């Protein structure tokens, strides 16, 4: 936990997270919701805002948004859509259909791994804009020679999740985003990739003396990773503290995080803010999810990552917020780990192998869970060295094999018996007198040369732990 960034000052952060929903089609039209295709192929009269076109709400988007609300412990409410009016070339209708004073999801919370509860004010549905590319200049609209617009993204469904200003440290902000991301992926609402823009985080940052009312906030945009979020908040907090300590005031404004200079820069001040002239979208009717619909969505909700991490950690006897547990649960491989351990696998080794070797394997790895279990047993019993076990696992992954013993045999990984290893150890001592002398004098790292020689002689089949034990035995006998 990082504590106060500047002693005597408290950080206050609220996060606004935009998430693209993983629907097949757009929020208000039948065009595909797909990333990465040629520009302007996923378009239609509604997407382009052609005269006469009308929006029709995507039911699947509503269900995904309801899942988000349920996962964040929100109330699901009867809601309406509003028009948010402003001119921008990638905004085809010159208004965005969003939710204003009656959002779908209200008043929830998210618990961080450290137990801190962060309030969630709302999570509402809205449509995404198109994407502008400014040609010439530095890539921003000012000073560019022209702009190209891709409307593939226009009308893609978004959920905007607005936290309360309950975050007090940089780590909490990062934890919030990580936990939220894990939830969104687990409930299949979004792939939530900050780097690809399917999850976008804006931070409202202010500082105050502990116990005082909230200070003036600045909104930080253009943060493209969790790491950048931490850097941006920290920079911004220091900037505000410096101003206040110099007797200046904070101006409420939107600031742009610049990754390369590590600073935030004024984008627009509050006085210049657009008047969005919100009014009820007359082309849509109120959305009133009935109890039956909400219950149907609720009953299809999976167990959330925090509970799964807790269950896995408890089962394996490792901390629930360890990196391996996070990773495995994130990838949806916790059920697989549990199955492998149930099949007799060595918990700690199963976890490590899944974390390290199954990054691309998805929730249902091709290697059967009992096969991985057998591998960890062979390794634990000394039939395979750690190096050999890794090698066997790679072969198992290639062939989706459940039989590590057969692979070990085919690779010639017969476990050497201790007497054969002892012969090799004695040859190594004879062949490396200098290293042996240093080792006997208590220089532990001199063992490296001896072990290396044994491994070379046995083509890596000797168990490193046995070699080390034999060397120690010889030294004790010698001394």
């Amino acid at each position: 936990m990082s504590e106060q960034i500047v002693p005597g000052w408290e950080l206050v952060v609220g996060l606004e997270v935009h998430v693209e929903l993983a629907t097949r089609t757009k929020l208000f039209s039948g065009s595909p919701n797909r990333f990465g295709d040629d520009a302007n192929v996923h378009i239609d009269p509604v997407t382009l805002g052609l005269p006469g076109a009308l929006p029709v709400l995507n039911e699947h988007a509503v269900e995904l948004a309801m899942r988000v609300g349920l996962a964040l412990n929100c109330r699901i409410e009867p809601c309406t859509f509003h028009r948010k009016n402003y001119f921008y070339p990638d905004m085809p209708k010159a208004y965005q259909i969003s939710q204003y004073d009656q959002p779908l999801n209200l008043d929830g919370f998210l618990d961080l791994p450290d137990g801190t509860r962060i309030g969630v004010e709302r999570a509402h549905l809205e449509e995404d804009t198109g994407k502008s590319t400014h040609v010439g200049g530095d890539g921003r609209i000012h000073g560019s020679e022209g702009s190209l617009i891709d409307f593939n993204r226009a009308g893609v469904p978004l959920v905007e999740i607005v936290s309360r200003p309950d975050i007090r440290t940089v780590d909490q902000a990062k934890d919030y985003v990580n936990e939220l991301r894990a939830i969104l992926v687990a409930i299949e609402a979004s792939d939530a990739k900050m780097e690809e823009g399917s999850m976008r985080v804006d931070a409202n940052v202010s500082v105050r003396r502990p116990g005082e009312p909230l200070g003036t906030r600045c909104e930080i945009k253009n943060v493209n990773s969790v790491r950048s979020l931490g850097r941006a908040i920290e920079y911004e907090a220091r900037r505000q503290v410096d101003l206040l300590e110099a007797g200046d005031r904070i101006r409420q404004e939107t600031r742009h995080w610049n990754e390369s200079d590590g600073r935030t820069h004024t984008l627009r001040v509050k006085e210049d803010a657009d008047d969005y002239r919100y009014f009820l979208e007359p082309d849509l009717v109120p959305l009133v999810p009935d109890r039956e619909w909400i219950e149907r969505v609720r009953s299809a909700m999976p167990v959330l990552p925090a509970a799964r991490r807790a269950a896995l950690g408890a089962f394996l006897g490792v901390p629930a917020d360890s990196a391996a547990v996070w990773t495995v649960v994130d990838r949806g491989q916790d059920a697989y780990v549990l199955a492998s351990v149930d099949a007799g696998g060595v918990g700690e080794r199963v976890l490590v192998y899944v974390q390290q070797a199954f990054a691309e394997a998805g929730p249902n790895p091709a290697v059967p869970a009992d096969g991985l279990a057998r591998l960890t047993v062979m390794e634990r019993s000394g039939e395979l060295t750690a190096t050999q076990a890794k090698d066997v696992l790679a072969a198992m992954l290639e062939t989706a094999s459940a039989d590590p013993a057969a692979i070990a045999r085919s690779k010639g990984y017969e476990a050497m018996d201790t007497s054969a290893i002892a012969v090799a150890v004695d040859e190594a001592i004879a062949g490396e007198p200098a290293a042996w002398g240093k080792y006997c004098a208590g220089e532990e790292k001199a063992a490296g040369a001896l072990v290396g020689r044994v491994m070379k002689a046995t083509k890596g089949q000797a168990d490193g732990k046995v070699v080390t034990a034999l060397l120690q035995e010889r030294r004790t006998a010698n001394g």
Partner: protein
Amino acid sequence: MTPRTAVDTAAGVRSGSLRAADVLEEHLARVASREAEIHAFNLVTQDAARARAADIDRRVAAGEDLGPLAGVTIALKDNLCTRGVPTTCSSRILEGWKPPYDASVVERLAAAGAVFVGKTNLDEFAMGSSTENSAFGPTRNPLDTSRVPGGSSGGSAAAVAADFATVAIGSDTGGSIRQPAALCGVVGVKPTYGAVSRYGLIAFASSLDQIGPFTHTVEDAALLMEVISGHDARDSTSIPQPAMQLRQELGKGVEGLRIGRITDLPAGADPGIMARLDAAFAALEAQGASIVDVQVPAFTYGLTAYYLVAPAEASSNLARYDGVRFGMRVEAPDTNAMYSATRAAGFGDEVKRRIMIGTYALSAGYFDAYYGKALKIRRLIANDFAAAYAKADVLLTPTSPTVAFELGSKGDNPLAMYLCDTYTIPTNLVGHPAMSVPFGTAELGLPAGVQIMAPTLGEPVMFRVAAALEEAAK
């Protein structure tokens, strides 16, 4: 000579006793002789119409049944999207734009066998009551070409009155079908909001806009409604119910119906107009209806509320005409300057006036005082109508306070023009159906229309009364 009706045309064409091509040529001949003077159309699609009529005749000869509008000529208001055919809203800003799709209404009419003869003139973006606010010049009233046909669907009303087409389609946001129907002496229907799909209707004020027919007879109007009404999944505000069946209502008479007279109706209608309204009440009473007095106190605030709600929605609906994706663009050094130059050149004065009023009404700090108040008035009017419809099945008012007026006579006075819609606007604010039926003549021997209003989905009773009035007017 009485124009041939849609019902008779379709029956003749389907039976083979009438050729769609001949019907079309009769209409095109009238267009050739009078269109230069009247200017009902922005575009006459005669080549496509001839091909279509020939195709219909071929298919009839081949034994195909072509639907209830087989061979019926139809004029479409030029704010309805037609695939590949220029659709302008009578605005420079859309000049040259060809929609890549047909409005749902156009699809349904085509499927019923209609022959489209052209796109009719309107007040720019349907903002006006005289069809003088068109970027392409005014339309004149076929009954007296020194006078306006009303608006905003003046081109459609004139096309029917001049028999350029057997029927026409218009849109009604505050009276834009009913008022021109009254001024041109034809039938005009504003259906219940949501009864006819708005998909492909270029929006003026989305919560008020509704598409409807212009016809010579009540029966034709009923037929058109049967074709164009019914649920459309592409319009979220479309009422989920099948197409209306209205022709079966027409012979039922008005015996026992309660016809409401609004005793606190805003004054201002000309004496000749009020005399026709009185005659209408008398005619219905003579046919067995009872006349009941009702009050709709908030009726009088309709105009005020409308001129906040409609411009507010229009300011948002018309923001997309920015020169980026379609229509006109005036080049400028940067995006904001391009928007300004394009919109300054592309929109006419009345459109700009309403965009500014609407933007203001929605602005932070003014919303509650203007747009918010207007929404409250909408609710008050709905409450008052609900009370009135507890006592009466339909309500009768004049459609327009005057007969057709002279071109230019309200020229520089937008408020005088706005008053034309005093009697028609309240139904749009509450989404109810209403229609105008010609009922004799008033001042200067020009036609007067009587407006029949009914509650939501009250079209069946509304058409019963309309048929009775039509009968009485003969």
